[in-house]
């Protein structure tokens, strides 16, 4: 009987806490707890890095892992540069068609932040950073890696800290596009990974002399158009690119960037590359598994893109 009363009390108090938390009434408490625990957590994270190396392999493998991490960062930076270049080429082609269009993205202003904690529940993919409302960070802001690739968005901002929802979180959805043009994995020989199906040609009307067959016009702009989808977090596969047109053909290694649609993310931030394509006959959409450009499990420092105001914040 005593246990039942205890359980009832715990349930009531917990539910009250959950409701208050959802209404943001307990934000000062959570900010205070992070303020107190962050130095210890940061110190422990630093101290645990050798444990990380040890845990991943045997003694000497730590150096290899570190070197590998550095190389991955370099690859990440190069991929970002390549994605930007490919996107710039595409943009140039578009601008040639639409003279007068002004690209309205100001110089990026970035704020460096340290990762102080990670959510280990397994049901979410979140990290805590040591920047908050007092530093100009707000919910919805975009978080980048040191190499400038997409990491996630601020999901909850306290005064001095913020929780960041990683792109692999099941609640994360980013409007994305597969960058047209040669991918690093395929090389220039493969070219055009994106092959939209050509529009059906109209049948000739009876009685009308059809002109001599001419070579089909080169569908340059269309063939070079980006295939758009939504990059979603997934507990099983990490990162998925869903809602792709059913007739889209993707090559493994194709780069995927933000499309800028919806206004919540700037255009041309590298998300990752296509790892595997899943054609589902029963589904109206094609889906692909992505390999994130950033090693999200080894983030120490991230950048908050404070110059970009997501649509959600701009509307307020």
């Amino acid at each position, binding site marked *: 009987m005593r*246990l039942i009363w*205890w*359980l009832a009390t*715990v*349930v009531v*108090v*917990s*539910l*009250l*806490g*959950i409701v*208050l*938390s*959802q209404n943001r009434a*307990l934000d000062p*408490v*959570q900010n205070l*707890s*992070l303020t107190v*625990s962050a130095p*210890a*957590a*940061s110190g*422990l*994270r630093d*101290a*645990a*890095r050798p*444990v*990380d190396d040890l*845990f991943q392999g045997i003694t000497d493998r730590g150096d290899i892992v570190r070197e590998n991490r550095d190389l991955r960062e370099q690859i990440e930076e190069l991929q970002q540069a390549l994605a930007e270049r490919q996107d710039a080429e595409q943009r140039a082609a578009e601008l040639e068609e639409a003279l007068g269009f002004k690209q309205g993205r100001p110089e990026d202003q970035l704020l460096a932040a340290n990762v*102080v*904690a*990670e*959510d*280990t*529940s*397994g*049901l*979410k993919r*979140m990290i*805590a950073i040591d920047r908050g409302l007092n530093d100009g960070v707000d919910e919805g802001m975009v978080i980048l890696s040191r190499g400038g690739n997409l990491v996630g968005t601020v*999901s*909850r901002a306290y005064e001095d800290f913020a*929780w960041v929802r990683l792109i692999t979180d*099941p*609640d994360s959805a980013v409007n994305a596009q597969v960058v047209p043009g040669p991918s690093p994995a395929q090389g220039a020989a493969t070219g055009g990974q994106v092959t939209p199906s050509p529009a059906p040609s109209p049948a000739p009307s009876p009685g009308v002399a059809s002109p001599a067959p001419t070579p089909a016009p080169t569908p340059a702009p269309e063939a070079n158009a980006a295939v758009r989808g939504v990059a979603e977090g*997934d*507990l*099983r596969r990490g990162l998925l690119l869903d809602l792709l047109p059913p007739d889209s053909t993707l090559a493994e290694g194709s780069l995927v960037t933000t499309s800028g649609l919806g206004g919540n993310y700037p255009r041309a931030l590298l998300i990752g590359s296509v790892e595997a394509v899943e054609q589902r006959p029963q589904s109206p959409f094609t889906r692909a598994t992505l390999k994130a450009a950033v090693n999200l*499990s080894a983030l120490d420092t991230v950048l908050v893109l404070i110059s970009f105001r997501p649509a959600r914040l701009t509307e307020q």
Partner: protein
Amino acid sequence: MRYILALVAAAFVAILNVSVMPYVEILGVAPDLVLIFAASWTVVRGDEEGAIVVPVAGFMRDLATSDPLGTSALALAPVVLLAAAARLRAMDTEFVPTVAVVASGSLAYGIISMTVLAATGQTVLLSDSVSRVVLPACLVNAVFTPLVYLPIHTLSAQRRSGAIGTRRLTSPL
């Protein structure tokens, strides 16, 4: 005094959980030291202390993570009931019941956490969450139980020895 010790230990374990444990990922999940701590403390030191320590550990965990405050206290509550049930079956060792409570408590914890997350509007894919997170967590937490259980058992043995004197102490395992 014992509750202050439990509070400090719970806070330390909660910080360890978000700082060091992400590096120790097995089967795609990190061991939940707070859950292991709560279960070990309750089995070794009794339901009376567990009834205080478990919710405190839960709140400590929530303060260190992005969960709404109260989620872990709620999700850890079954640990006390499971420990009480485990005590009904007399055994020479406390280790085996602790492992059993950790494993079953992990299952209950996962299910309640998913329910709270879903109720607060977050995406929870049941099959993926159970197969990728909850079930591996039961195994991983059980494997990591000695890491937390042994210090608590040792501390409790010293306390019992000081209080009761010549009482025979059982093996930690």
